[in-house]
């Protein structure tokens, strides 16, 4: 039976939203894949296609065929240099979901952009070229995706057409990736490996006729059906007060976006940092009052008591464990600024709706993003990632990033340039000062170990540092 347009719209308005990140370089066929998704899901208009065909002939790299990559290279400077400079956002929808793609380049110098593009993603597609298998950049992307707390990963083994659609090649890549992951400190919650050819359209939208040995979902099938409900933390209610509404003497409402959890009228809530308690009187929206609200809704909450509460403060459920509170924040930090970190300098740290003065007190180690190894460091430069301890001028309240991507995240702003110098993900918070970096000095001679063993000992020390974060200076 034919649907009326009204029925169709009523249904279409209920689609879910999925945010995804694509990681890989132009050589992996990333832009071709995105172009293919847009093309096959009919998100390209005739005039865009005409422009694409015209540009493909003029500046394309697809030998006269349609160069889907040109769809994604928007800025003039990029066309000249043939690289993607920054995060670009693409949109497409199917009958089941609306998708927001954060398209980021795979070059090493652009870790910053991948981090930017991936911060809100539910899912990441990591592309590998079937001819080359798992490369350094695959490992780097996997580490970054895990650092960002993205739960669902698709390892898309692309260019299957170039390896004769070989099941063996595919299985080898899948197996070597899984066994490499097993040796890593970081974890990926949900991994799906899919053999595709973006160029020929195999297993992207349409099931491949050349890979009958593959019985799993196509890329789009998976994007449409992967459950994302559990990606939002609905356990612990966290509400950062963003704006206080006082239209008249009788109304005082606290507006904000629910970071996590669920709130109901009548719930007992605690204000932080004051610790004062009250109950939820109403949950107000333009469309009428609500009985309950949940993350990530934007609402206005009124309370039964006149308690002191302003922007930057947080409401939590009295019955639930509170977030951690303290001055000393241990976190993974990604340096995003051309100017390296100056540990003597004070910064602004913005966390939820709260801004405080802060400084980096300790750098425990830097992470080599290609190998996930820990390296001693005294400063941080652009694109470097480190475990640090930050001291804030006033106590802040947050949750570990792995538990809460909203209240566990912060940005660091340079007070002179106002640039976003760095971003961070909270590991833990305390009020006991920053733990000092553990550096152990050992001398082989003093321990009576022959210098001929120094190479082995040095390797062992390196491994201890990687696994335990203890820096050992080993001298002969």
């Amino acid at each position, binding site marked *: 039976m034919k649907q009326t347009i009204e029925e169709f719209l009523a249904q279409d308005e209920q689609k879910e939203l999925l945010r995804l990140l694509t990681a890989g370089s132009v050589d992996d066929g990333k832009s071709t894949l995105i172009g293919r998704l847009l093309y096959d899901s009919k998100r390209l208009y005739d005039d865009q296609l005409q422009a694409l065909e015209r540009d493909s002939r003029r500046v394309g790299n697809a030998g006269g065929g349609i160069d889907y990559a040109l769809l994604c290279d928007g800025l003039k400077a990029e066309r000249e240099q043939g690289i993607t400079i920054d995060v670009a956002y693409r949109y497409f929808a199917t009958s089941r979901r609306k998708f927001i793609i954060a398209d980021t380049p795979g070059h090493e110098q652009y870790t910053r952009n991948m981090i*930017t593009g991936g911060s809100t993603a539910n899912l990441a597609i990591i592309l590998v070229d079937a001819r080359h298998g798992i490369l350094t950049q695959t490992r780097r992307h996997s580490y970054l995706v895990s650092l960002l707390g993205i739960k669902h990963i698709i390892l898309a083994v692309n260019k299957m057409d170039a390896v004769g659609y070989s099941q063996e090649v595919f299985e080898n890549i899948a197996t070597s990736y899984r066994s490499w992951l097993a040796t890593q400190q970081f974890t990926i919650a949900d991994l799906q490996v899919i053999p595709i050819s973006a160029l020929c359209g195999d297993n992207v939208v349409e099931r491949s006729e050349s890979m009958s040995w593959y019985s799993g979902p196509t890329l789009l099938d998976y994007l449409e059906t992967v459950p994302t409900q559990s990606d939002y933390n609905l356990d612990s209610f966290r509400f950062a007060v963003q704006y206080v509404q006082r239209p008249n003497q009788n109304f005082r409402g606290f507006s904000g976006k629910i970071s996590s959890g669920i709130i109901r009228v009548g719930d007992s809530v605690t204000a932080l940092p004051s610790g004062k308690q009250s109950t939820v009187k109403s949950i107000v929206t333009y469309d009428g009052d609500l009985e309950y609200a949940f993350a990530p809704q934007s609402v206005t909450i009124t309370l039964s008591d006149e308690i002191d509460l302003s922007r930057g403060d947080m409401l939590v459920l009295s019955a639930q464990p509170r977030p951690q509170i303290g001055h000393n924040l241990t976190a993974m930090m990604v340096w995003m600024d051309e100017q390296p970190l100056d540990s003597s300098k004070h910064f602004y740290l913005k966390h939820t709706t709260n801004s405080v003065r802060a400084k980096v007190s300790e750098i425990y180690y830097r992470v080599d993003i290609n190998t996930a190894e820990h390296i001693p460091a005294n400063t941080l430069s652009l694109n470097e990632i480190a475990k640090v301890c930050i001291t804030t001028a006033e106590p802040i309240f947050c949750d570990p990033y792995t538990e809460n991507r909203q209240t566990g*995240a912060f940005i660091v702003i340079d007070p002179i340039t106002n640039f976003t110098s760095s971003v961070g993900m909270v590991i833990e918070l305390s009020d006991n000062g920053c733990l000092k970096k553990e550096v152990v000095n050992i001398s082989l001679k003093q321990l009576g170990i022959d210098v001929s063993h120094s190479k082995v000992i040095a390797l062992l020390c390196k491994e201890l540092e990687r696994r335990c974060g203890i820096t050992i200076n080993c001298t002969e």
Partner: protein
Amino acid sequence: MENYSLSHLRALEAEAIHIIREVAAEFSNPVMLYSIGKDSSVMVRLAEKAFYPGKVPFPLMHIDSKWKFREMIEFRDTYARNHGWDLIVEYNREAYEAGVGPFTHGSRVHTDLMKTQALLAALKKHGFDAAFGGARRDEEKSRAKERIFSFRNAFQQWDPKNQRPELWDIYNTRIGAGESIRVFPLSNWTETDIWQYIRLEKIPIVPLYYAAERAVVEINGNLIMVDDERMPLELRNKAQLRRVRFRTLGCYPLTGAIESDADTIEKIVEEMMVTTRSERTTRVIDFDQEGSMEQKKREGYF
């Protein structure tokens, strides 16, 4: 049973409201730029939602190029009055008095003087430190790369290669003297989302979006409506009555109509879902030169 998942439209709405409130909380003198188009209409409704039951704490500003459709101006004044908005209207008086217009000066000069320069002067005159715009990332390639909070230096210019990283929903709102931020709460909306939301929320829009019999002239493949007698007589003489509507609205000589029977929102959405041309094809200014939108944005155009 309680449901804890948001539809894509409600998720986009929650994101936009959060962005709008963040600006109101962190800037001392924000303004919402109002183009009277469908995107602006959605943005304005989102602002009303963000501060309900209170009043929106910033004004609307329309940069009048003096060549807008007359129906747009009527709609603007009625809407602002009915919804209690504080409305500022600014235009480039000098250029207007010199008679600048698209028919006599071409689209490039007209757009630069009556839109870009007028906007820059108005922002400076009022000392606004943040300005909301209704631009969407799916509209055009250079917009796809722009941040939601987009920094402008003291010359109001956008530097695409040196954008501030923007992560999660934590926005960097810090600026120096003379600098400003353009804010795009609809960044993640598509044209389909806009229409679906207008339908869902029953948001009033300018009637020109609906199909009706209108007098139009075909100029360089675009159907241009005869909105007043400033259109040269030799063009006006070629006018024909056709059943048309507009997918985007701007200066009437620079905005092409499409032939259509869609006279309800439902029909518009239905038409859009089967359409084969993107909405910007009806905007004449984009075709000036390759990368022309990027160029205009660097110069300060929205």
